[in-house]
């Protein structure tokens, strides 16, 4: 298994290198440049020459690429021209939002999607089956931005002042002015520095995690309330896909001989369904979940925009608009790494679910 993982990592290096080079060239090919995007109407040739010299864009492109590759090898992803901050710092600040959003969206997608799939498969051709699949089809058909706006309008505006009201569009991650302590401060380690502090600060920026670890339950519940609608909006499409995949896979497995044998042995229907059927039906579902993780981590642009969550998706959108080359390159590299890791984890999980496909 270890050898398998190492081989996969080594094999991913050319992929990542290719992503870096292609993205590096692509961002420079698209029209516009950081200077005019940053200075707008006030840009002129003299100021742009100075601007470009400061950020290293006055060098020939091959030289820029060489410098960038050398920097990446030392984990330096460059500095944002828009924010004037290291790209790594921006990722560390903004990644927790996306991770938290992805987690809750995926949780919603898996719990609701698999429940609907199991319900549908176990009561095939019943009203529950038709209803579940209608929900799934609806979910996969509604664009995220429509669902997000509708949910937000209903829960934030129409239900305003009722106990069912939820934070809506542009609500961000916490109520305005909500004050809380970082994990390091709450644990009495405010003088902690270096990588351990960075890890704690990273976790602190996942507010629900922070709330639980530091017993700031006000923070936990406020952050959770702000995640409900974005998670539903983002998780609905994967939920629908998981529901349909679970249904079809489960129906296929439940028709196999060993399931018939289990039934003939007099096992209870629930045992047959969950112990013998569902586990063997999970392989394609896990594949879908794995792909969804990558997609959610990198593709939450619309959800983040609607709900005012400054995560990785919103960051790359802004970076492209402002021709912030370093951020575009850094986020693209990050997304590529995520896909490589998620694919690897998916492959490993196959072996856990089915020993026959365990990598030797």
């Amino acid at each position, binding site marked *: 298994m270890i050898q398998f993982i190492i081989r996969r990592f080594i094999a991913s290096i050319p992929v990542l290198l290719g992503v870096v080079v292609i993205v590096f060239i692509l961002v420079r090919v*698209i*029209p*516009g*440049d950081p200077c*005019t*995007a*940053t*200075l*707008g*109407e*006030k*840009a*002129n*040739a*003299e*100021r*742009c*020459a*100075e*601007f*470009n*010299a*400061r950020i290293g*864009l*006055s*060098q*020939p*492109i091959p030289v820029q690429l060489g410098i960038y590759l050398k920097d990446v090898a030392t984990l330096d992803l460059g500095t944002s*021209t*828009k*924010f*004037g901050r290291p790209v790594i710092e921006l990722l560390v*600040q*903004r990644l927790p*939002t996306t991770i938290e959003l992805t987690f809750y969206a995926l949780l919603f997608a898996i719990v609701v999607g698999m429940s609907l799939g199991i319900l549908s498969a176990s009561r095939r051709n019943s009203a529950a089956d038709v209803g579940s699949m209608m929900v799934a089809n609806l979910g996969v058909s509604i664009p995220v931005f429509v669902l997000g*706006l509708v949910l*937000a309008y209903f829960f*934030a*505006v129409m239900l*305003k*002042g009722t106990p069912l*009201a939820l*934070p*809506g*569009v*542009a*609500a*961000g*991650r*916490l109520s*305005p*002015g909500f*004050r809380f302590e970082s994990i390091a401060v709450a644990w009495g380690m405010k003088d902690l520095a270096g990588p351990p502090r960075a890890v704690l600060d990273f976790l602190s920026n996942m507010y629900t995690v922070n709330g639980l670890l530091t017993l700031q339950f006000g923070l936990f519940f406020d952050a959770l309330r702000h995640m409900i609608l974005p998670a539903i909006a983002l998780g609905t499409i994967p939920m629908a896909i998981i529901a349909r995949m679970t249904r079809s896979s489960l129906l296929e497995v439940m028709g196999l001989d060993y399931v018939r044998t289990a039934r003939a042995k007099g096992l209870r229907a629930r045992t047959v369904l969950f112990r013998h059927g569902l586990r063997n039906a999970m392989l394609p579902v896990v594949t879908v979940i794995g792909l969804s993780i990558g997609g959610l981590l990198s593709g939450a642009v619309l959800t983040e*925009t*609607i709900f*005012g*969550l*400054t*995560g990785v998706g919103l960051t790359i959108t802004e970076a492209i608009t402002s*021709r912030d080359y370093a951020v575009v390159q850094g986020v693209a590299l990050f997304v590529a790494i995520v896909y490589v890791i998620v694919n690897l984890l998916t492959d490993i999980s196959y072996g856990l679910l089915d020993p026959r496909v365990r990598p030797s």
Partner: protein
Amino acid sequence: MTRPSGRLPKFATLLASFAIVAAACTPGPSTAPTGGPTTGPTSQASTAAAIKYPATGEVTCPSGSTAGSYGGKDYKGNMKSIEAPDASTVVFTLCAPDVAFLQKMAFAVFYINDSGWIEKHAADGTIKDTMNGTGPYKLDAWNKGTELTFSKFDNYWNKDKYPLVPNAVLRWSKDSGARLQALQAGQVTGMTLVGPNDFDTVKNDATLLLAPAPEGQALNTLFVGMNHDDAPWDKLEVRKAVSLAIDRQRIVTNFYPAGSEVATHFTPCAIKYACVGPDWPSGGTAADIQQAKDLLTQAGFPNGFKTKIQYRNVFRGYLPQPPVVAQDLKEQLAKIGIDATIDEQDSATYIKNANSGKLDGVFLLGWGADYPEVTNFMDYHFGSGCTAAFGKCLPDISTPLGKGNSTTDDAARTAAYTEANQKLIDDVPMVPIAHGQYANAYLAGTTGAQVSAISTEVMWGMKPPATASDPNTVVLMQNAEPIGLYCADETDGESLRACEQSMEGLYGYTVGGTDVIPVLATSCDPNTDGTVWTCKLRQGVTFHDGSTFDAQDVVTSFAVQWDEANPLHKGNTGIFEYWGGLWGGSLNPAPPATPAPS
């Protein structure tokens, strides 16, 4: 700056430091002054001696098209020296009179930081992440990606008046619809920049309050430009024909929110001297169309010609609906035989092309005020260092503008801008179209609801209605996150608005208005020719960290922007864009970059 504890006199320390620097350095062009803030314990003390920036050498001012010099390097700026004869006086000496001096002092870019704060936080790079001002609110936290939180500064010098409520939060969302929904949901007290299609929604919602710019106060201009260096725009008759063909009222009526105005002059009339001289001639009537056709015939285009209408599809207050305005313009030009194709360009490319004079069709562009002064509109576009968008500068426009920006005499300025406005009509480098209305929205019952063309809405002058979810906290939602909090090195309105909440300048704007008033200065008075401004500083002012405000803070705040060789000339980008734009140039400018081979 002084710390509140009784320590060594700061001013004396400064003097000693400057004396050491002066003794160690031979004044002359080869010496680059450091002249920055000093280190060590300090406290406020008045002194009879003076400090001066630059500490060594003399700045030679530019003359006409000849650059001045300092330290052996060219100098193009208008600032000659900044002196502090005592702890409560600062003297700015300029190379030439600057009629917009007070407006510039009121601009958030030139707000005053504590010198010790700059020394510490510019050096370690954290100055862009935090603020230490003298304003009614102190910054509590910048939760990146989420909000800025502020709370009342208990030692504020004007604490009997401001802030109106103890807490404030600044949030952001790019989409105006999202901001509006957040307001409707009661999540925020107010929002900036209502979408042009949402004006009626806000007006018709009894729980909301629309705060439009007062009549005539829309400080922006949309214009249709033509590069007179390129054919066919090099023919005056063609440019005049375009002006006559455009029915500007039709564009404003159909595509702008209520309250927008047809531009009678290039600069909005709310600004002094903007609208002296004749109004821009009408266009679009049958007689105008016929006259335009005749002019095209005279120019050798009896059957018209083909061209492009160039624009970028970016929402701005001066152009809320770019594609439809471009389409309407196409139809209007077709009436005189000009067959235009629509050329929508990427925003960055478009600006680059405009500023390098590469837009070869008629183009839609505009300008929003940095500060409310006629020079901010006119000089950038038509002054001696004009933008290349319209081609080479036109001396018969730039000459009166030069007269107008170098005198404080009211009659002389009126005469200069009257002449400049007349020459704009005569030469037609562009056609001014509209001043677009903009508005903010608030919860109904909000006290001090404001709207500003120059991002000067101040939350410390607002109070939420009693029915708000938290009446003690103002929550304002703007359209983007601030890029940095050291506004000296920022250009975006969102950063400047953040600074307005916590920082103060020698001058500032009236709450919700555009009149300048003394803030950290009690007065700034010019000498007779307007080249020396003496500012008397307010006493008893403290920064949020407890340091005392004095003249050194003013000198340092300006010096670190002005001098590129100053070790504290650091910020977000290090460009200090507005310094170069508003004061003409820096001391010790970096050598021009070598362009990359392509």
